[in-house]
């Protein structure tokens, strides 16, 4: 956590050049998926493969959260039978996956994006509408 704070502080001192928004991809319905199209603003910052990998990983995790499988059915039925009071002690499958996603994004930021002067914002903070990528000015070329 301390690492995060120092990272954030550092980021706030750097000027923001631009923000890129990765919009939702609705081609498979209302499921939460993001477009894997590589935005032109990131061309000289990060390579396409890396970016696509990140977005695909996010998409897979969201798909897992919303998956209709035996686990979700069991959870749903149990919840219904207990009049949904079971969620006072237990967290839903979706929430568990969201935590996993938050950790993944943190990890990606630390390892890959921060060294390149980029910052990924967790989509849940934007209502699952966009993946916001903040581009900071290149103060030092760390490559």
């Amino acid at each position, binding site marked *: 956590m301390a690492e995060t704070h120092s990272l954030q502080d550092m980021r706030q001192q750097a000027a*923001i050049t631009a923000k890129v928004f990765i919009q939702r991809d609705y081609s498979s*319905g209302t499921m939460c998926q993001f477009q894997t199209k590589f935005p032109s603003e990131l061309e000289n910052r990060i390579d396409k493969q890396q970016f696509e990998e990140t977005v695909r990983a996010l998409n897979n995790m969201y798909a897992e959260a919303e998956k209709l499988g035996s686990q979700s059915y069991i959870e749903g039925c149990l919840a219904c039978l207990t009049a*949904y009071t079971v969620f006072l002690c237990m967290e839903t499958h979706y929430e568990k996956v969201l935590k996993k996603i938050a950790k993944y994004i943190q990890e990606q930021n630390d390892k890959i994006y921060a060294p390149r002067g980029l910052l990924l914002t967790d989509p849940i903070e934007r209502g699952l509408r966009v993946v916001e990528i903040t581009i900071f000015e290149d103060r030092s070329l760390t490559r």
Partner: protein
Amino acid sequence: EPRHSGGPCPPPADGSEPAHCPGHRSRSPRKKWQVFPGRNRFYCDGRIMMARQTGVFYLTLVLILLTCGLFFTFDCPFLASNLTPAIPAVGGVLFIFVMGMLFRASFSDPGILPRATPDEAADLERQIDSAGCSRPPPRTREVLINGQAVKLKYCFTCKIFRPPRASHCSLCDNCVERFDHHCPWVGNCVGRRNYRFFYLFILSLSLLTVFIFAFVITHVILRSNQTGFLGALKDSPVVVCFFSIWSIVGLSGFHTYLISSNQTTNEDIKGSWSTKRGKDNYNPYSYGNILTNCCAALCGPLPPSLIDRRGLIQSGTPQTVSQSNGTSNSSYASTQLHSNMCDQDQCIQSTKFVLQAATTPLLHSDPVVLAPLPGKTTTLGGPCAYLAPAQPSLPSCGGDVLMLRDAAVDSRCHHHLHLHHHHHHHHFVSPEETPCATPQGALPCPAHLHLHHQPHPAIPSPIALYDPASQDALHEDSVRGLVKLSSV
């Protein structure tokens, strides 16, 4: 049109939470529900949220409690002793389930989509403007879902492209995911997150109503052997049950059909997927078989709330309304400036709208005209003197307009002035499609402040007052118009 204001509310003491203030913005907002832009009410520090109009919800509660109360008081003793005590037991379980589902449907977030942050909105605007060369630029997007073409519409209030199946509820002023309908009986919208609770509520309520009706009839029949038919009938909640059965059972049946075909009420009413629209029209969201559709709707994963109503507001977080405490996170300065400039234009636009709404002065025959026509300066004294008694100290423009609201009789004026009040307080939303965030120091404000600082007829030359305004023709218009309003 009722507007959510929360009304005057005693400011909370230090450290205490304004649990009794339904969504009113306190002096130092700490939690996000306090600055929520939609027309919702929040209780218990943001844990409970409902629509603005909750009258019918209380009616629902009363009806259910009354019917069940009568049943348990008058019929159950007889039935328990004469038939079996399982009857009140089952009735009790059903009753508790019904109430639980009702509260869950009423108090939870239906799946509200939070509004776009200023950066996102600006980015989308750029994309929209660059996309089409036609004026106005197209605000729809076509998406192919499972082979079916679906149109995504742009929501002017929330400044987002609505996901498929989402719709903007005009009563709550929110975009809701998988919007079914706004249910006044439940006092909330029915959307993705509370549809199953709503369905279970009406299903269990129909079972409960049928249950009560059946056993009340049994009771009446059994007792009529003893005391006579009419005597037995008068103690029973038969009438309520009878009428509600048809409506509630009917509704349950309708929603069962909707669930099995994976449609929303909204889609069904519009006939979005009906074959009448086209031979190849089909529902792209249906899983194909009824069982999967039902399981998905009722036992599928429950998505969490996207609006984080009990979260603390952090100064760095971009809010969908302009920052009221002005903590400048320089990161957002450039985009804020851009949106402020746009908003200033919109402010002028909506001010002009206000002018058009207030066509005639209601109380004064002479319209007050300023800067360009210095001849009629003396009439300024009149309205000022009239409005002076109601004058509070004026920290901002909002106070002025609120005062005007007291003076204005016309309900349309009410509405538009109230809009002005809200946007001057950097609060939320416009009922129209042009949201208006006040730029700092909007030009009409000085006009008001000057006007109401002089309650006595001796008024300084209005030309001097309005010099800055006369620079810009638009501003001049709005200033003149607003002063005209004040004469009302």
